[in-house]
């Protein structure tokens, strides 16, 4: 891919990630989910970027999205967004770009979701106290559900776009 094409695609995906996470914030919180749990739809965009462009392009999106969060929701939310996004994107990128990877898209989605939530929980523990670890089992269960969903969507996205590019 040409450098300009890459840059344009990266910018488009960054805008998409911001829009998706803003839209997700408008949804009511899900039933049977711990408070604060989200689907993590923008993770699909960063994982897709990590797969089709590079991990650096994906991290650029994470930083841009966090800056948007800083402006709209404040410093606490900024650190939560940045830490979760950074850790989960790096882990997802490693898993996605492994040759002969034995972990499928659902496993990658779940692992990224767990990484995202654990990083945020650590930040929350620093801000308040270690009592937040009470949330851990609920967050793990929620991550399995949301990570599977994002993994399936990522798989569909990648297979559809790969087919278009080659066909």
């Amino acid at each position, binding site marked *: 891919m040409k450098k300009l094409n890459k840059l344009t695609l990266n910018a488009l995906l960054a805008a998409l990630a911001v829009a998706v996470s803003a839209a997700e914030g408008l949804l009511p*919180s899900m039933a049977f989910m711990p*408070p*604060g749990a989200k689907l993590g739809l923008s993770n699909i965009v960063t994982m897709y970027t990590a797969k089709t462009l590079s991990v650096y392009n994906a991290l650029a999106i994470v930083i841009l999205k966090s800056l948007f969060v800083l402006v709209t*929701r*404040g410093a*606490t*939310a900024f650190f*939560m967004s940045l830490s979760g996004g950074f850790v989960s994107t790096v882990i997802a990128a490693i898993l996605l770009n492994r040759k002969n990877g*034995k*972990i*499928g*898209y*659902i*496993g990658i989605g*779940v*692992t990224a979701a*767990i990484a995202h939530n654990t990083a945020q929980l650590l930040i*929350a523990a620093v*801000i*308040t*106290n270690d*009592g*937040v670890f*009470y*949330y*851990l*089992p*609920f967050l*793990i*269960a929620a*991550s*399995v559900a949301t990570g*599977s969903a994002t*993994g*399936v969507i990522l*798989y569909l996205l990648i297979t559809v776009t790969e087919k278009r590019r080659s066909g």
Partner: protein
Amino acid sequence: MIKLRDIIIIICLLGAAAGIYIYNDKGEGSRVQIDYDGYKYAEIEFMAFADDEEQRIHINGTTVVIDKYGAYFAHSDCKDKICVRSGKINRVGQTVVCLPLRVSIRIEGEKAEFDGITG
């Protein structure tokens, strides 16, 4: 899309979640500790409360209500209101945190103290 390892990962994670939950459950608590900015702000014994007795604590824009059966955030000035939606807690170790306003409530009980020392 889904491989054997994915299923193994999911089963292990759910098992771990269930394990942590069971390990953490230490029955109903007897008092609530309120922290502000990472430091202890108040500690209230609610077990000995009368049926209709309740105590309201206002701290940094939040209102914590404590009655005989537990504690909850009745109000918060923060935007997301996650703490208010979390509802009432009464089991040892249960915690509700209002991250934006740095206020948290946690249920304590006698048994938790010992677990804290040994575990």
